[in-house]
C-alpha cells in the first residue's frame, strides 16, 4: 500500500503493509528520532503528534493516517541549529540523560503547552504520565517544562 504522509510540514510518499504500525513506517523512512521502547503503548518513546494530539505511533496503524493528517516529530519543532524553546529548556534544566525518551517527552510537553501555557506541577506530571523515563527520576523534566512555559510566556 501507499500513502502520502505529511510529516513535519512536508509530504512524503511511503509504502506500507496493511498491518504495519506508524512507528515502523516512520523509522523505515528515516524518521529515526521516533524511538521504539516497548511496542505496547506503555513507554511513550514513540510518541508523535497527530494533528497536535499525542499518540503512541507503535499502536497506530499507518493505514489509519490520511494525507490530510499532520504528523509532527521532535525534529519538526526544532533542530540542532534552531532548537525550540522546550528543547533548550530540557538542555538547561539537565532534563536529558540518556535521551532515548526525550523526543517523546519533548513532544508531550509541546502538546501540553499548546493547550495550557501555565501548567501547574501536577498538570505537568499528569501530561507526562504516558512517558517513561528511567534515568532522571522526572524531577528535572518537570522543571524543564515549567522553565519552557515561563520562557514561552515572555516571548
Amino acid at each position, binding site marked *: 500500500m501507499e500513502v502520502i504522509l505529511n510529516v513535519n510540514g512536508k509530504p512524503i510518499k511511503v509504502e506500507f503493509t496493511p498491518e504495519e504500525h506508524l512507528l515502523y513506517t516512520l523509522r523505515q523512512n528515516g524518521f*529515526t528520532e521516533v524511538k521504539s521502547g516497548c511496542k505496547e503503548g506503555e513507554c511513550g518513546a514513540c510518541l508523535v503528534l497527530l494533528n497536535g494530539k499525542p499518540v503512541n505511533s507503535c499502536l497506530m496503524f499507518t493505514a489509519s493516517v490520511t494525507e490530510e493528517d499532520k504528523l509532527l516529530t521532535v*525534529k519538526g519543532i526544532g533542530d540542532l541549529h534552531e532548537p525550540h524553546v522546550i528543547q533548550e529548556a530540557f538542555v538547561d534544566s*539537565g532534563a536529558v540523560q540518556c535521551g*532515548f525518551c526525550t*523526543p517523546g517527552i519533548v513532544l508531550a510537553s509541546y502538546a501540553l503547552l499548546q493547550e495550557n501555557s501555565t501548567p501547574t506541577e501536577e498538570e505537568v506530571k499528569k501530561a507526562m504520565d504516558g512517558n*517513561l523515563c*528511567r534515568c532522571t*527520576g*522526572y524531577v528535572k523534566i518537570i522543571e524543564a517544562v515549567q522553565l519552557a512555559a515561563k520562557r514561552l510566556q515572555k516571548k
Partner: protein
Amino acid sequence: MNKYTTVGKSEKKVDALSLATGSSMFVDDFALKDGLYCKLVYSPHAYAEILDIDDSKVLAVDGVVDVLHYKNVKQILHTSAGQGFPEPSPYDCLIFDHIMRFVGDRVAMVVAENRKIAHKAAKLLDVKYNILEPLFDPEKAMDLESPKLHDSSHAYPIGAKYVPEKNLAAEVEIGFGDMKKGEKEADFVIDETYNAHYGQHCAIEPHSVKTMYDEMGRLVIISSTQVPFHVRRIVAQACDYPLAKIRVIKPRIGGGFGSKQEVFLEPLAALVTIRHKRPARLVISRAEVFQCSRTRHPIRVRLRTGVKNNGEITFLEMDSLLNSGAYGSHALTVLSNCGSKVLPLFNKIENMHFLGRSVYTNLPVGGAYRGYGATQGYFGLNQHLDILTRKLNLDLPAYIKKYHIQVGETSGVFEALGEGKDGVPQIINSCKLDECIDICIREIDWHSKRDKKITKGDKVRGVGLAVSMQGSAIPLIDMAAAYMKMNEDGSFNLNIGATDIGTGSDTVLSQIAAEALSVPLAKIIPFSSDTDRTPFDVGAYASSTTYLSGRAVKKCALKIKDQILKVAAEMMGSDLEDLYVEASEVFDKKQKKSTSYGDICCYALYTHKQFQIQAEASEIVEQSPPPFMAQAAEVEVDTKTGAVKVLEFISAVDCGQAINPQLAEGQVEGATVNGISYAMTEEYVFSDKGNLLNKGFRSYKISTAADIPKMKTFVVESHESSGPFGAKSVSEIGINGPMPAIANAIYDAIGVRMYEAPFTPEKVYRAMQVQKIE
C-alpha cells in the same frame, strides 16, 4: 567558594541538545544496507535437555537465510558478564547449549531477509525436549537431592570456589575478631532475615546490536553496551574470531544501569555477519528484555547481631544467599559487594563474619544492576539498625552518627573482601555522612514526626531513615586511559575509552580536561568508546568513570599542559618556572607578557622543531573511596487497605567535589526514583513452571512522573584528595536507600516490619494481619 572555573559548574551536557532535537544516533538508528533480521527462539521449559532440533521446515521458508543452534555453532565456554579479564564470573555458558536452564534460555536464532519472515518461520522450528525437574527455590539449591544445573566442566578463569554438585555458583567467607567473645559480651541478639527481590533495569532502549563488515573486511559491531572493549574481547573469544579484525562502536546509549554490561547479544549478531558476509540486526523486544536479559539478583540476607544494652554491637554475622538464576553472571562479585559495600560502614564492630553463597536456580539470570549487591545488603542493615535502636529507645540518626566510619578510619572488610580475591586496605579520606544525616532529619522534620503516628482517619504517617556507601571503581583491577591532542585554535580532542551511557561522562570528563588546561568547556572535543579510535577503558560500571577515567583525563591534560608551557617558554624566551596558564593563555609573570594557546599550537605545528602537542595517560586506582548518603522518607499508610503512599523523599549525598552539580543531582534523582519504584511496585511474578508472567510495562509497573513523591536532593560537597579535583562517584549509591527508608517509615507509621518488598497493599495488609496476631 568554588576555586575552579569549570569543575563545580553545571555546564550543559555536551550531547543534550543533539538528544533533545532527535539528531543523536542510537544503535537501531543506523541504516543497514542489505541487512539480515535476527529472531531468537527461546525455551518454554525451565529445565530441559534438547534431544534434537530439526530446522528443515524453517530453512525451507523463502527468505530464511540461516538457523543457528547448538548443532552448528562452535561450543566455547565463556561468561557473558562483560567484566575485565580474567573474569570473576564462571565460564558456564555457550552461545547455544543443548541444556535449557530457564524459561527464556536460547534455543536457536532464525536469520531472515526481514522481520515478518523471521517471526513466521521461527514458529516452525521443531525441538524435541526431555523435560527435567526444575529447581526454583534457592534455599533448596544446595540440597543433595536437588537437580544439578551445571557440571564440573564449568569453572572460574580466576580459580574461585565453584561447587556444581551443590549448585554453588560462588561462595565467599570472611571474618575477623572473635565471634565467640562477641556472643559472650552481648546482652541480647537480634536475628532477622530480609529478602531483596528480582528487579529489571528497564532502560528505555532495549538491548540492540548491529554488525557489518567495513570496506576493509573488518567486523564492525555497533552495540548498546556499557563495555565496548570487553565486547571486543568476548566476541573474539566466544566466536573464535581474531580480535584485531573487530571494531566495536558505542553510539548514544538509551540507558544501562548495569544491564548493558552483559555481552550476550553481540556474539550472535557477529556470527551472522561472519557466516553470511552480510550486515545483521539483533534488537530484542521488551518482553525479551524482561525474561531473557539480566535482572537484579534476589538476595536473602540474614543478619545476626549481638548488642549490649548501651547499644554497642558486639558481633555481626551476615549470611547472604544470592539467587543467581540459570547462569553465574556476576554471581561472585554482586555477592561480595553485598558485604564489602555494606559492612565497612559500621566499622566499630570488632567481631564480624560474612558468609555469602550464590546458587543456581532455573529462573531468570541475575547480572550487574546499579547498587550491585549493596542495595540488597542495605535493605537488611538499615532495617536492622532501626530494630536495634527501637529496642533500646535510642535515636536512630544519633546512633548511626556515633558508629559509622569516619575520616582517618578504616574497616577490616576493605582488606578482606574484594572482587573475586582479597580486597585492598583503605583509609577514608572524605566523609560527610553526618551532614547528610542532619539535612535529612531537618528536611523530613524527623523530630516532630518520628514515633508520632500522625493519624487522619484510616491513614497514619511515619518517617524512616537509611544510610549507605558505595565505592568509586574497583581498586587495582580497573584501568582507564585517555588521549588528547591540541588544535590550532587552542581546542583539544579528548579521546576516551570511557563509556557515556546517558550518565553525562563525556561532559564530566571534558570538564576535568578543561579545568586542568584552563580552557572553557567548548574547547574540549570529546570522542568516546570506539575500540579502533580511543584508548582502553574498562567501561561504565562499578561507579568508576568520574573517579578512575577522570584521573586518567586529568593526568593526560597535565602532560599536555607541560608541553604547552615548554613551547611557550621557547616562543617567549621565558624561564619555565615563570610561566603559568590562565584562560587559554600562557603568562610570564616576570616579563608581564603572554601568548595564546592557539599561537602556541600553530608554533608547534608549523614553525619550529615541529611536533603535535599530544599525550596519553593510563590510570589504575589503589583505593575505592566511598561516596556516602543519607535518605529519608515520609509515608502514609492506609490501615484499612495496606496502601502505602510515599509523600516525601529526601536524599543527601557526599560525592566529593561534584564535577557537574546538576548532573550529580540527576544521577541521585534517577537512582532514587528507581529505588522507590523497586520498593513500591516492581516485582517478578512467576508461574509454577518458572515462566515470568509480567514481562511488560503494563504489568511490571515502574514509576511515572505522576507517581513520584515530593523530592529534594542535596549534594554535600567534600574533597576526596585521591579523586580528580576532589571527586568521588555518584551514579549508583542513590538506589540503596529508598527501600529500607520506606520500610522503616512504614514501621514508624503502623508498627509492622516489612522484610520483603515491593510494599504493595496486599503485602502490607498481609504483614499487618500476621504481625498483629503474633
